[in-house]
């Protein structure tokens, strides 16, 4: 996409250099039009990224793009500052979170983020539907205030007996969620970062991306069901 001579300053038409300010006239330059978030931060497309190291970089750039500096500037310069700042914010928000960062990588690499088209985790689905049933029963007890029958569910028990069952589920699902997070940010991140560059169609690459997709998908379901459980147990 190098159709425009990006490195030419929009103001003085001289070579602007690689910095965000023109080397010749010092005017603020727009961020590369097609630069992805990693590039905006001048980072390689790697996943193991130290969020703590990202922050000072963000502040440095944010200061440079701050619209206040350009209040006296040209209208075009003010616009550039604004646009740069908003893209920078977006990039920072996405990159600093390991899950958002991974989802973003999927978009970059495969042109689509998370959607329903991936092999669905059937076992997890069944577990979630089970929890839904327990939650329905629990809610029914709450409304009736009595001891309704639990068809196929927890013996003949009231809400008091159902509560520990739900709590147990919550703990188990939370553990599953934590395991996924650990696997993603551990082994999977490392595997991605180890891949040699310049092998876009490689098998190993596809494999890693598939793992990311699977874990992020499962995480979305786990997050939702955990939220419901916490809500029902009054812990939310």
């Amino acid at each position: 996409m190098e159709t425009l001579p990006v490195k030419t300053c929009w103001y003085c038409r001289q070579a602007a250099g690689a910095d965000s300010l023109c080397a010749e006239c010092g005017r603020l330059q727009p961020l590369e039009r097609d630069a992805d978030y990693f590039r905006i931060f001048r980072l390689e497309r790697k996943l193991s990224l130290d969020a703590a190291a990202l922050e000072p970089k963000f502040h440095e750039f944010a200061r440079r793009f701050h619209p206040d500096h350009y209040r006296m500037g040209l209208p075009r310069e003010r616009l550039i500052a604004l646009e740069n700042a908003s893209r920078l914010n977006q990039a920072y928000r996405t990159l600093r979170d390991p899950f958002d960062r991974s989802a973003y990588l999927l978009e970059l690499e495969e042109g689509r983020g998370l959607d329903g088209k991936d092999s669905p985790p059937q076992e997890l689905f069944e577990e979630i539907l089970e929890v839904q049933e327990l939650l329905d029963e629990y809610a029914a007890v709450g409304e009736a205030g009595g001891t309704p029958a639990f068809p196929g569910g927890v013996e003949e028990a009231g809400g008091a007996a159902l509560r520990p069952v739900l709590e147990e589920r919550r703990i188990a699902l939370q553990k599953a969620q934590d395991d996924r997070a650990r696997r993603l940010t551990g082994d999977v991140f490392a595997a991605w970062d180890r891949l040699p560059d310049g092998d876009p169609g490689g098998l190993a690459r596809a494999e890693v991306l598939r793992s990311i997709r699977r874990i992020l998908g499962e995480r979305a379901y786990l997050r939702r069901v955990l939220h419901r459980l916490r809500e029902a147990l009054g812990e939310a």
Partner: protein
Amino acid sequence: MPYSDKVLDHYSNPRNVGSLDKSDPHVGTGIVGAPECGDVMKLQIRVNPETNVIEDARFKTFGCGSAIASSSLATEWMKGRTVEQAMQIRNTDIVEELALPPVKIHCSVLAEDAIKAAIEDLRQKAGTGTSGAESGERQAVSR
């Protein structure tokens, strides 16, 4: 949230909630999810093997009001139709009937996916099960 009357009706009075016997050779089960929101839906149909008509349809949804309404409506529509007719149900039909807003379209997509998954399950059973082995083979060849 501005739910339409029809959504509220299906939501507060869902039709065909429940389960069918998964191991029944004439029952198709589809369990699908939407990673965008983390909701899950199970839809089951029981088909008359002679007529190919869907005699019963059941659902269970772990999801929002629109997803519950979509699956409730889908089961209502499927009952009495043939499998081929049910296959024609589109999420846009559901969106229209329930007047779902744009942010709730994925909830209807979930219902359409569930219908397709249930039918697919049924076809696979027919292909591998003892009773439907013949038709299954024919299907495989014609593909």
